[in-house]
């Protein structure tokens, strides 16, 4: 076995040093009654060549985005990833290291996270950010728990425009905490209904959570929603599922958010069938001590030289145990690194240009598609790089036909809610050329008739 170096002679010497006659003796405390009395039934062992052949075959049975023209979004986005990102994250000093518990030999990871925290603060308009969470959905759930913790209130208002899988994740996390999770409807524009929110708010509300952009691609009027929340004494949570939008849109911080969470996969992380991604989590300074997850801070060493450490650890499970702010004990270190590298490369101008291209391409596609007979926009509000269309006829059959032509045409929203039968969520990024968009329009025209 090429990963295990021990020769029979090594084993003999080690057993001798231990003072036992066989490896078997080392397992003397495992009672016979719980021993496995047969071999495991598993595939392998495979040589490297065999394994590559076998696993590559599996990979080829998937619709790789290199072979398809894709208009799929819904929380996982196809953005261009510069070659530098994978090159740098492949440095094994980064990917084979553990959590930076020994700061003297982890300054690379620690400084990187400090930079990542800064970038997230800059994007979201917040004052503090943690070292990351599992994904946008779990970060959203943790934001709700944090709001409940710091306000000591029990009602939570979730916009119906929040990603349905994020909402479900919030529900799972809150299942046994005796909280009231309520939904605030979206209006015909596709944005959260401010009047409905005003009606639902009260002194007993811990927080209001709204997508930005929301699940339908709509750019919510956070300022109005969050002003209502603040008036009622509730915290405001912005949930960002497509953070490229933050290159262009006013930051949630400017609009009154107390907590901003989101999914960072768009920043240089491959879609990879939905994971691993990157949950980012930022807040106002006043909430710092109730943040979940790890934080990196700047300090000095014995010689006065600047350096970085994990800090404010008393919030965490290994110290506070059942009173911790969360049970999380990892972060998405490598994914945070990808995002940091990506954001540094893209930079101030690049991020603005990128967001502009996404906006322009999506608007072009929306206009072209809505010119087709029978196809109408489902919502009237401004959208970023995704939008929902009402498509007449059998939408599943249409999508199947598009796939046969090499086009992944969008997400039929029926999969989340039967009431959304016939509604198609289309995502257009900088990766979709005009040619591809025109081909999509032609293909749908062929099927809509």
């Amino acid at each position, binding site marked *: 076995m090429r990963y295990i170096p021990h020769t029979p002679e090594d084993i003999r010497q080690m057993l001798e040093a231990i003072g036992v006659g066989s490896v078997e003796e080392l397992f003397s405390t495992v009672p016979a009654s719980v021993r496995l009395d047969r071999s495991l039934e598993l595939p392998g062992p495979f040589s490297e060549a065999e394994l590559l052949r076998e696993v590559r075959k599996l990979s080829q049975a998937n619709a790789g985005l290199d072979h398809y023209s894709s208009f799929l979004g819904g929380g996982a986005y196809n953005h261009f990833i510069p070659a530098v990102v994978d090159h740098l994250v492949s440095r094994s000093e980064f990917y084979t290291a553990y959590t930076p518990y020994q700061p003297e030999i982890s300054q690379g990871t620690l400084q990187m996270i400090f930079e990542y925290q800064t970038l997230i603060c800059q994007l979201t308009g917040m004052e503090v950010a943690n070292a990351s969470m599992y994904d946008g959905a779990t970060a959203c759930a943790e934001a709700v728990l944090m709001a409940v913790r710091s306000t000591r209130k029990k009602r939570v208002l979730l916009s119906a425009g929040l990603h349905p899988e994020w909402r479900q994740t919030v529900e799972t996390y809150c299942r046994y905490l005796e909280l009231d999770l309520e939904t605030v409807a979206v209006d015909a524009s596709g944005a959260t209904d401010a009047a409905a929110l005003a009606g639902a708010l009260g002194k007993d509300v811990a927080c209001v959570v709204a997508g930005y952009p929301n699940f339908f691609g709509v750019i919510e009027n956070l300022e109005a929603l969050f002003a209502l929340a603040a008036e009622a004494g509730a915290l405001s949570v912005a949930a960002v599922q497509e953070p490229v939008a933050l290159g262009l849109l006013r930051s949630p911080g400017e609009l009154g958010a107390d907590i901003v969470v989101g999914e960072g996969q768009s920043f240089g992380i491959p879609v990879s069938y939905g994971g691993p991604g990157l949950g980012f989590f930022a807040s106002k300074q006043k909430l710092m*001590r109730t943040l979940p997850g790890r934080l990196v801070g700047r300090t000095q060493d014995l010689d006065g030289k600047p350096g970085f450490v994990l800090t404010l*650890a*008393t919030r965490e499970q290994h*110290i*506070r145990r059942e009173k911790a702010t969360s049970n999380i004990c990892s972060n998405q270190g490598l994914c945070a690194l990808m995002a940091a590298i990506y954001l540094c490369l893209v930079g101030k101008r690049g991020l603005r240009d990128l967001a502009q291209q996404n906006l322009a391409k999506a608007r072009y596609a929306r206009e072209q598609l809505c010119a087709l007979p029978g196809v109408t926009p489902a919502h009237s509000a401004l959208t970023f790089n995704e939008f929902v269309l009402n498509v007449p006829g059998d939408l599943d059959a249409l999508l199947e036909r598009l796939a046969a032509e090499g086009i992944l045409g969008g997400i039929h929203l029926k999969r989340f809610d039967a009431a959304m039968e016939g509604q198609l969520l289309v995502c257009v990024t900088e990766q979709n050329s005009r040619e591809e968009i025109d081909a999509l329009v032609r293909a749908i025209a062929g099927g809509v008739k």
Partner: protein
Amino acid sequence: MDFPNHLFYTEEHEWISIEADVATVGITDFAQDSLGDVVFVELPEVGSQVESGKPFGVVESVKAVSDIYSPLSGEVLEINEELPDTPELVNSSPYEDAWMVKIKLASKDELGDLLDVEAYKAFVEQQ
């Protein structure tokens, strides 16, 4: 380790000094020493009610966190406003500069439950 004679103590390692019906409370030299470098102190709000044996605040070092239990019941008259900004006072001056709260006692009956310096020293010995 220093345990002034004129103070009362608890098994939760708080010290108490009594003047008329007002108790001043802090944590002992032993407590600060076992915590290590104190980095954060959270105190109750002035005007709030505290109850004997219930936590009213938190003191944190880099790698430990400890609730501060109220030794007596009553109303918080005053808190040490310096501490949140300079928590290191708990290490450097636990009995003077790092007093934490002043409590107006609800009743003097609970005073009998406190330890005198000898009893506290004996308790610390066993730790």
